């Protein structure tokens, strides 16, 4: 269980970020937290030892789509209205999750319990993840470049909004 700490941390962060998408007021903040969800999802791909797919996810969703979303949303940010009912959000999500998890893991035919899943998926442990990062400078540099580009785009948008240029 201890070797799965990176997965558990990323799981907690991705759930918090995806809930904050519905609780924040400004649409630009929502876009930022959606970008964080995409980034953490890409890190989960990396945890599953699918490096190429993680980089594709990073380039498409964080590098391309999120920057486009920043520009599009920030250039017309006239609406601060946010109306999300918190109680239905919690109730519906918990009920749907319970139904899906029970249906998948119950003893019903078609559930996962039984002999279908008889081995584990290969996942990096904490030390393996750190060693893979330290041994592969390409992945680290690509992640750094994409995160820096996203932050640069966000900073430029905020500066242009401050200067009333957009």
């Amino acid at each position, binding site marked *: 269980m201890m070797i799965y700490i990176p997965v558990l941390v990323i799981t907690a962060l991705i759930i918090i970020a995806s809930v904050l998408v519905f609780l924040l007021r400004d649409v630009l903040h929502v876009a930022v937290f959606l970008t964080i969800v995409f980034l953490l999802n890409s890190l989960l791909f990396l945890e599953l030892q699918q490096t190429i797919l993680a980089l594709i996810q990073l380039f498409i969703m964080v590098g391309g789509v999120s920057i486009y979303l920043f520009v599009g949303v920030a250039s017309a940010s006239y609406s601060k209205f946010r109306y999300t009912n918190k109680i239905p959000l919690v109730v519906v999500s918990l009920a749907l999750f319970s139904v899906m998890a029970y249906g998948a893991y119950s003893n019903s035919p078609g559930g996962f319990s039984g002999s279908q899943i008889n081995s584990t*998926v290969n996942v990096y442990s904490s030390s393996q993840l750190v060693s893979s990062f330290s041994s592969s400078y390409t992945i680290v540099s690509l992640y750094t470049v994409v995160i820096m580009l996203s932050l640069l785009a966000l900073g430029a948008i905020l500066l242009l909004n401050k200067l009333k240029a957009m």
Partner: protein
Amino acid sequence: MFQIFYMFILLAFGLFSIGVAGISASRHLIIMILSIEIILVGSSLMAISIYSYVSGGEVLALLFAIWSIAAIEVIALVAFYRYVAKLQVSLDVTRLAKYREDK
């Protein structure tokens, strides 16, 4: 024994549930569309979990379809948002019924 595969599947279920609950609990049009992105994140996580388990090539097509849908959706969202912002129309979906074609 704790199997990490189950955890990825449960996380995908959780993200899907949060996305669906966001659609049903929100009245903001942009938030409703962005919650579909959360559903697509859960779907891609489910696809990549199954891909890393079975190592089958068919899941990759699903994954690229999910990425395409997510990208097209954001492009359509931004175009629609710019248009709505230009018209100064409320983004509350309960008020959209006022803006019919015959008016």
